[in-house]
């Protein structure tokens, strides 16, 4: 059986998309000969030429802005932001234009744009290299926001995102870039907008995404030894949110803990808890708890594991809701 890192799977998704659709372009800082600082675009420029795979100046607003013009000219841009913390200059173009353009033109234009952003922490990175920016995008109408948790689904989600007619913010969990997964790369499987049950269980559902899926699976393993069986729901897509699978999980387990790296206040956990109340309040056996990053700037390497949800914090939250 084949084995892939997430970097290799993303690279394959880009390669396959470019081979399939000659209108697909890949660009960003250092994505050419170097293949990006994480090598996600490695070899693409040699294979597809420097017109379709090109370096840009260090200009994040410019990178996002040219996506708009290129889309109007009939191209499908797949742009790379070098790091989460350096993507903020592009926010104005993303929020004011990429997200709104179709609406502003009464549906006469569309923005089939993918903006890939290496995101989240856990890599002992310098400051500005461990940000969780998902809420900024999830709160912006007009965008879709997806986060893969492993190599095989990263291939699927990126392929689907590039084929999607709406703009997609594609957040790549850096700490999972080099983790290997065995299997075959395939687009078939869960579509965009669908969550994925990664582990079945009856006592509690852990709702999570990105690198925290692995951590929740570890926590579920620990809890299983205590005869507490946890369902692990990998959201994959933050916009749209798979409300059906979320409600189904509540109906099935009656208890939910949401886990994410981002700070707690107004993080995805707040939205998920509120949606659960709206969709499945009658099935709740305990309050929804959140295990998240803290409301402080992302910490330096020496402290990051004290900031990120740990197996201990997750299991402790599950024990609380189960004994409620």
């Amino acid at each position, binding site marked *: 059986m084949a084995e892939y890192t997430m970097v290799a799977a993303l690279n394959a998704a880009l390669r396959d998309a470019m081979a399939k659709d000659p209108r697909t372009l890949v660009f960003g800082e250092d994505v050419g000969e170097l293949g990006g600082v994480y090598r996600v675009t490695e070899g693409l420029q040699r294979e597809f030429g420097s017109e379709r795979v090109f370096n840009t100046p260090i200009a994040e607003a410019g990178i996002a802005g040219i996506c708009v013009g290129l889309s109007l000219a009939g191209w499908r841009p797949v742009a790379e932001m070098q790091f989460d913390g350096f993507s903020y*200059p592009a926010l104005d173009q993303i929020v004011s234009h990429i997200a709104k353009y179709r609406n502003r033109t009464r549906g006469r234009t569309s923005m089939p744009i993918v903006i890939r952003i290496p995101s989240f922490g856990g890599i002992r990175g310098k400051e500005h290299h461990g940000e969780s920016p998902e809420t900024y995008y999830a709160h912006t*109408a007009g965008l879709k926001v997806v986060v893969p948790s492993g190599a095989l689904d990263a291939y699927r989600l990126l392929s689907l995102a590039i084929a999607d007619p709406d703009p997609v913010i594609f957040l790549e969990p850096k700490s999972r870039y080099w983790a290997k997964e065995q299997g075959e790369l395939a687009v078939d499987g869960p579509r965009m907008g669908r969550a994925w049950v990664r582990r079945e269980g009856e006592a509690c559902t852990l709702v999570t995404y990105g690198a925290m899926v692995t951590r929740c699976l570890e926590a579920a393993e620990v809890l299983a030894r205590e005869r507490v069986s946890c369902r692990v729901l990998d959201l994959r897509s933050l916009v749209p949110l798979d409300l059906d699978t979320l409600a189904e999980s509540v109906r099935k387990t009656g208890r939910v803990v949401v886990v994410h790296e981002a700070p707690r206040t107004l993080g995805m956990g707040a939205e998920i808890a509120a949606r659960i109340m709206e969709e499945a309040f009658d099935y709740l056996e305990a309050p929804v708890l959140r295990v998240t990053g803290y409301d402080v700037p992302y910490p330096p390497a020496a402290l990051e594991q004290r900031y990120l949800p740990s197996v201990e914090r997750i299991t402790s939250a599950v024990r609380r809701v189960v004994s409620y």
Partner: protein
Amino acid sequence: MVIHEDPYDVAPVRLVAPDGTAVGDTDVGLKPDELRDLLRLMILSRRLDRECMALQRQGELTVYPPFEGQEAAQVGSAFALEPDDFVFPSFRELAAAIVRGVDVVEYLQYHRGTWHGGPYDPIASRFAPICVPVATQIVHAVGWAMGAKLDRLPVCSLAYFGDGATSEGDFHEAANMAAVFGAPAILFCQNNGWAISVPLREQAAGPIHTRAEGYGMPGVLVDGNDVLAVYSVTRAAAERARAGEGPTLIEALTYRMGPHSTADDATKYRSADEVKRWRERDPIDRYLKHLLASGAADESFVADCEDEAKEWVADVRAGITSLGPPPVDELFGFAYVEPPESLERDRRSSTEAPDG
């Protein structure tokens, strides 16, 4: 008092002096009927602009940004483009929209408050949505030009922006990228001297057009109230772009005779004397004198233009004032090609609610 009309030591490209006399080669390659059309379009634009001010005062439009005084800068530059070129306006380019054949009633839906940005068809009219976030549209123009270049199309894009926009980072990123990628783009700055209440000298310490050299592209300073000069320099920039020689930065010196918008009071920050001096440089009066003197047009042509304008403006008024709100369903209709199911639910519950 430093007045804006001569902000720099260098003289702008000028073919016709404010009194209508030729001071350069006025043979810019236009046929007599095209020369007359420039005048006609400027007259139509001004009449519509004034009508829009009236419509706003009568409560038929929301806030409106008048462009009176900038007709030559807009008409001359837009006239220099080919049908397949693409214009990326800011929010004061109604005259350019008229030249490009944009459906004006649809355009004014923006100011009517019935829809945002681009209620007209931006693809068919090759005129991007009205763009209010300052300077952001310049980057779009560069991206479109990059795409056209990849398609080997003999076209160019033109981005309109003001002097204030050159302080934004997006201006810099757009200009730099345009030059680096050799994009067939024209960066057209209408320097009207004022960014709302902030004069040019508080906006920038050096000239705008000379920044082009730092980016590695030509920069041109033109008298923005001289329609032939504007046409001529824009045409040259477009030909350069089409020939694969990359972008050009044009700085057109002009003046906004009215307020920034109907919500603004320009008397709070600039003198009546300054406004009067710019009235003496009026782009339409200047060109009219020139055409009459050269024999390319006569008084009856001007009268015909005024008659046409009167009739057309009345039609636009009727079209605008008859516009009601769009159906509530449209609130949800355009944000996504494939909307989230939760949004579909909101649409159903909103549009099927008893109170509508």
